[in-house]
């Protein structure tokens, strides 16, 4: 039943990483893993990922709190009926940074790490979100981080 439902969205809930994990700075996917100046939780909120999709956190290794995957799911009305659309991001802790280490997604959605980092940063850049502490100084720098005037 409900096979013909159109696309709608709702937030999810469940097991989640600690604030100590999501509060770490997200790193770029460049060779130097340049800091982006934004914590992961800031990035997720700025992209509206906490309210508009079904969100499921999981740990690839149940004994490792330093790696978490975030699955975002929705059902959209495709050209010939409802279709499940998903993106799955895996973040791994490296010191005081989080590296995006894997992206899986529905057909047609980019899975490149760099492309996804750039896309994720559109949110905090557009909303002028608060950067992490180290980037609040006037001379702070970060990957694609807008310089202060």
């Amino acid at each position, binding site marked *: 039943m409900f096979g*013909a439902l159109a696309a*709608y969205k*709702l937030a999810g809930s469940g097991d989640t990483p600690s604030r100590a994990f999501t509060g770490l700075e997200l790193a770029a996917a460049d060779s130097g893993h340049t800091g982006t100046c934004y914590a992961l939780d800031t990035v997720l909120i700025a992209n509206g990922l906490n309210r508009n999709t079904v969100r499921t956190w999981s740990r690839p290794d149940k004994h490792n709190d330093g790696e978490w995957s975030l699955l975002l*799911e929705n*059902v959209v009305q495709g050209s010939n009926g409802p279709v*499940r659309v998903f993106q799955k991001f895996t973040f791994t802790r490296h010191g005081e940074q989080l590296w995006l280490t894997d992206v899986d997604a529905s057909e047609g959605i980019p899975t490149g790490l760099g492309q996804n980092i750039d896309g994720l940063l559109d949110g905090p850049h557009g909303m002028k979100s608060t950067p992490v502490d180290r980037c609040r100084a006037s001379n702070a720098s970060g990957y694609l981080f807008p310089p202060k005037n």
Partner: protein
Amino acid sequence: MRPRSLPLVLLAACAALAGCSREITRQQVAEFVDQADAAARKRFAPEICELRGKDFTLDLTFHGYEGRAPSQMQITRKLYCQQAGAFSRLRQYKLERKSLDIHMAMDRRTATVTAEYIETMPYFEPDIVPKTPDDFTHFQIVESRDESVVGLEDGDLRFLSTHAEAHQALIGKDHVQLPYD
């Protein structure tokens, strides 16, 4: 009866009761399906969701009105419940059950329910955000054949899984009288 025998008797009685409580009857299953259909007609998302087991999955094969290759998807309970929440926003909806067949498992702990339905509801064009719930030109009529496994979970009947095959047709908004409720 000597007092020291009592624990053994109680244990045996409890075991027997537990054995009975893990079995389901055809009547229970039929009433459960009626309850689920009523929840759908009300579009009451919490109940629709509650009637699905924690590991519930829906496998859907959907034949759209344009006759292209069918879309297929499998969703978990979490995403299904999201859809139920969205479903509750429909103002016009009709559900008719055309048939119901209940096949009890040998151990009577689960049943396979096969049901045929016709649903009528507004059709909202993809990629167009409706301005109001009345912002549509056609109703969609979806005929589906659902095959569900029903069983006990924490003492209550639940849908454990559903495989559905649905066929969609469109009909002009003026050709259907569907009350608002």
